């Protein structure tokens, strides 16, 4: 129950953070030079004339927020709407409400993210386990080399090369667009590679840590076959902490696929967000920002919950530990974090 109470407090913190975030975003938006109208002008490609769109927006704005109200009132109005998930019309797409834009865009981004994460996990876990078992062999260093290489390139660059190879040269996959599963392949791969490397490295080091635990030795001393010992004692305990890396990774993917979306012309949420920011589309930007924030924080909560469920120790302990686990997650999230190259001895018989 200390557990539940702890999550109660966490929820409160989330709420607080959301308020701060929205306020920050709004302020930044006020500070940022250039208004929506100005930018309409710019994209209209001719000077000295404001797009009628800007007018339409002015109208929209007036009806929702009242005529030239002070900024802080606009903010309040927006937040009032936000509470009931009624974010009002976007500037850029006056006919569409922000929530509907999100409703359209998010499933797309989410699909990409989930698929990418699944693929990453599917490859990362075996690779990491294998590398750990074959520690300090060509297999180990080799696979890690390749992975790090894949990770070293930012995903948009990987994407470019993928496109050049599979669409440009081999003509087997579409280079861009959003017209069916075949359009998913390249972007998902491009997104998966980075996480894949991080996860695999993490699995590996986590495995090495577990392998060097005394209870693994004890299990062997009980006469367990390597396969059984690894499956029952090593795998589980090494994969539990993986949750703490995967969660935020998924969240990050769900919210931060801007490059990929632009490059492959995928109507995802990342794109709407970037456009909103650059076109100063207040409602859309605020909406997406809040939505992202919620997603990210929700994943945090879920991860901690799941972690607690998977690891009896954490379950039994108080929130303090969970906080701790989040910290360590933060560190392991970065490339190749985790343990040293098995500086602790790993028992034989698992080779």
């Amino acid at each position, binding site marked *: 129950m200390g557990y539940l109470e702890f999550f109660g407090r966490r929820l409160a913190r989330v709420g607080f953070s959301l308020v*701060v975030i929205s306020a920050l975003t709004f302020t930044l938006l006020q500070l940022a*030079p250039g208004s929506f109208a100005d930018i309409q002008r710019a994209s209209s490609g001719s000077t000295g004339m404001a797009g009628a769109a800007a007018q339409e927006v002015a109208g929209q704005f007036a009806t929702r927020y009242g005529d030239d109200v002070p900024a802080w009132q606009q903010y309040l109005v927006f937040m009032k709407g936000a509470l009931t998930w009624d974010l009002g019309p976007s500037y850029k797409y006056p006919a569409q409400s922000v929530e509907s834009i999100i409703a359209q865009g998010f499933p797309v981004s989410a699909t990409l993210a989930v698929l990418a994460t699944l693929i990453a996990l599917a490859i990362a876990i075996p690779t990491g386990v294998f590398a750990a078992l074959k520690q300090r062999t060509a297999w180990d260093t080799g696979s890690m080399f390749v992975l790090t290489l894949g*990770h070293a390139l930012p995903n948009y660059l990987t994407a470019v090369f993928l496109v*050049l190879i599979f669409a440009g040269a081999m003509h087997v996959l579409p280079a861009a667009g959003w017209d069916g599963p075949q359009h998913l392949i390249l972007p998902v791969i491009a997104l998966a590679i980075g996480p894949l490397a991080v996860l695999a490295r993490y699995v590996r080091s986590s495995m090495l840590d577990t392998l060097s635990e005394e209870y693994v030795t004890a299990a062997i001393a009980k006469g367990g076959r390597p396969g059984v010992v690894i499956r029952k004692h090593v795998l589980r305990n090494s994969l539990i902490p993986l949750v703490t890396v995967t969660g935020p990774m998924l969240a990050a993917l769900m919210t931060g696929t801007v490059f990929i979306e632009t490059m492959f012309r995928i109507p995802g949420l990342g794109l709407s967000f970037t456009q909103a920011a650059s076109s100063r589309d207040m409602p859309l930007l605020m909406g997406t920002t809040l939505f992202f924030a919620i997603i990210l924080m929700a994943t945090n909560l879920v991860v901690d919950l799941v972690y607690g469920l998977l690891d009896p120790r954490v379950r039994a302990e108080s929130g303090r530990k969970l906080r701790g686990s989040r910290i360590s997650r*933060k*560190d392991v999230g970065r490339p190749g*974090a985790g343990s040293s190259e098995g500086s602790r001895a790993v028992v034989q018989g698992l080779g």
Partner: protein
Amino acid sequence: MAFISLWVVLVLLLVAIFAPLVAPYPPQTTDYGQQLAPIGSPGHPLGTDTLGRDILSRLVYGFRTAFLVAFVAEVISVVVALSVGVVAGYRGGRADGALMAATDIMYAFPTYLFAVLLVTVFGRNFWSVMAAIAVAGWVTQARLVRAQVMTLKKRDFVEAAQGMGAKGPTIATRYILPNALGPLLVTTSFAVPAAITTEAGLSMLGLGIADMPSWGAMINEGVRFATSSPHMIISPAIAFAVTLLAFTWMGDGVRDAFDITSEGRR
């Protein structure tokens, strides 16, 4: 692996520092005679770009920029991270709560918006991009320092120091801080490539550094010409990968040296 990469990094640093000596031309020198010259053209080993500027030279200076950005950004975020992290970790209570809240917020906050703001207000120049990166970076590191300090706080020598009559600040700065630096060094060496990537990313969004040669800009342009003049993307991409790999592996090395395992997790 770590050692090789260490050398690579050192070489790269030398290149960055002595760019003027290494680069065959100043990065801005145009040669309208031969634009988009392919790799291996006379005088331009890596070819030229749309303005006939020597790609090798631009790579060299570009790395200088990238490294500068990364370095300064890191210094800033490390300083912030240390001060915040140590206070939060050592004092706990209020300060800690505040940090956690701050990190929560930063964690969920669109850095892009910061980037846009900074870059828009202060222009697409070195400093704003650098600041944007630093803003993004300090949180993670502050968290790490905090974690470190919290574990170190429980070590006997802290009690010993108290026994010797040392006061809080002394303990925090003289005894705990030095021992918390190790892991931070690791994250920093990982953060350098991260920073370079971020800069490149900002360029992709048209928010990168415009007033000096930057890898981001080069890659961005290279991508546009990917099909027609592959050499414009290939060499930057390779340079990019090599640098990132080198730093990452160096990071691994450093981490092994400090063996963060015991501290870092659990």
